[in-house]
């Protein structure tokens, strides 16, 4: 709302803003902010120290905001035993709205490579890679392609960006946009009578 409030509105525009727009916009914002997303947070495990702590922090903050945020390893027990690990992760990724990847472990590098070829999933990934690793094969290969296609690859500077929560800020910015997308999609579904709550 600060974008409007910082503008010196005329008395007529100010009256419309205060009496009509602001109450409705705030109502809309509340509804959008309560639209949950299913989010997977891929990245290094507990042995990675502060990077794992960052992964935990991102997951917990997303949960605090009402999203279904999980590590893949948390869902392993629910997966069909007949599927391979790659198959299980593919299903999880397919069900998720967003996949946050902290590219700092062999596991997450492999996962990104596995799924970078799947257009159903590669859109969903928001990938953070250590800028020290950008001259490696992973960045010059699949990640560069994703960055070109979808602009969903971000580099981070270790340890400053980890310490200063820049990763979390970028994740939340992406989540806010996706919440609006999902809210609009669900409102459309409701208005057609395909979901409860429509006209």
């Amino acid at each position: 709302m600060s974008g409007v409030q910082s503008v010196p509105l005329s008395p007529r525009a100010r009256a419309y803003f205060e009496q009509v727009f602001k109450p409705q916009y705030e109502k809309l914002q509340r509804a959008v902010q309560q639209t949950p997303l299913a989010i997977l947070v891929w990245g290094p495990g507990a042995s990675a120290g502060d990077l794992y702590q960052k992964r935990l922090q991102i997951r917990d903050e997303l949960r605090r905001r009402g999203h279904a945020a999980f590590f893949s390893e948390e869902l392993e027990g629910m997966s069909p035993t007949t599927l391979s690990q790659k198959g299980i992760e593919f299903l999880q990724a397919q069900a998720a709205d967003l996949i946050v990847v902290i590219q700092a472990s062999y596991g997450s590098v492999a996962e990104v490579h596995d799924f970078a070829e799947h257009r159903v999933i590669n859109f969903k990934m928001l990938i953070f890679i250590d800028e020290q690793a950008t001259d490696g094969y992973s960045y010059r290969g699949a990640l560069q392609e994703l960055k070109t296609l979808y602009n969903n690859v971000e580099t981070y500077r270790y340890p400053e960006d980890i310490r200063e929560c820049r990763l979390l800020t970028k994740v939340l910015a992406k989540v806010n946009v996706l919440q609006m997308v999902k809210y609009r999609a669900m409102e459309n579904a409701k208005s057609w009578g395909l979901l409860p709550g429509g006209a």
Partner: protein
Amino acid sequence: MSTPSPYNLLELYRQHRDEIDAITDPLTLFILAYVNHLGTIRLDEIAGELGLSPAALNKTLLPLYRGNFITESAQVLSVTSLGKRVLAELGFGASPVPPQPSEPPRQPPRSPAPSASRVPGMTVFGVAAVVLVSAILLGALALFGIFAFPAFPPTRVPQVITHPPVTLARQTTVGMTPTFTPTPSLTWTLTPSRTPTWTRTFTPTRTPTLDTQGPPAPAVLAPTGGVVISCSGTYLLRWSSVTDPAGIARYEWVLEQSKSGANGPYTVSDSGETTSLTATPKLSCGWWYRWRVRAVDGLGNTGAYSAYAYFSIGID
């Protein structure tokens, strides 16, 4: 290569980026709603109303132009039918009537998975099940294409509720004096609104007087009485001390000389100021002299001169 699923939010965002950009930025959405509220408005007029430069206004309008939510013709802006539909879906209708305060709050859409995530103590299995069920549901909806933004938007028919006109009877005043039983009483409770502060006034018992009095005149000690002093040697003028309430700041002395005799005429030959009780004047042999001294107090008040004292210097 597979076809992108309509239930990919990022894919949806990519497809509808202009619309999302327009409705997630408060200022852009406000401009769209405000133009819709007014019907039409000139570009320069809305720039003035929002206090924006033409460049800043154009930048804000860009996603609205790109998304075909607003059109401009001959410098006049108006909202397209697509823009009106999006506004209506977001709750910004054409009517400027403010929302009723009694309107129940809109229930935000919720899916089972995040609700589960908010339940403390829920097992990972339970939450995962909810996520999978949600995925299946959304996937099924995706098959019907319902998450694609509507190419053929459903038409909403506004409901207009009419009410027959109501005639209100004019109120008539009847001469009546109301009585109250029992007789009402009124009790006043006075509560001080301020905490008193004590003020004391001091009256001086003495009125100070301004000291304008000079100190008394000192008494000359030597040389006096017409004494004749040898031409060789050094001589001091000496006088007695005096006191004053403001203290003595200094003494002023004046020496006069005459060549004609003790009776004068005298002319001033030397003078000076000192804080001591003596002075060393300039003297010449063969002259008659007289001198006097006065005191000055600490406030600058000058006292009276002493009487003249006479002496002469011989010619050895």
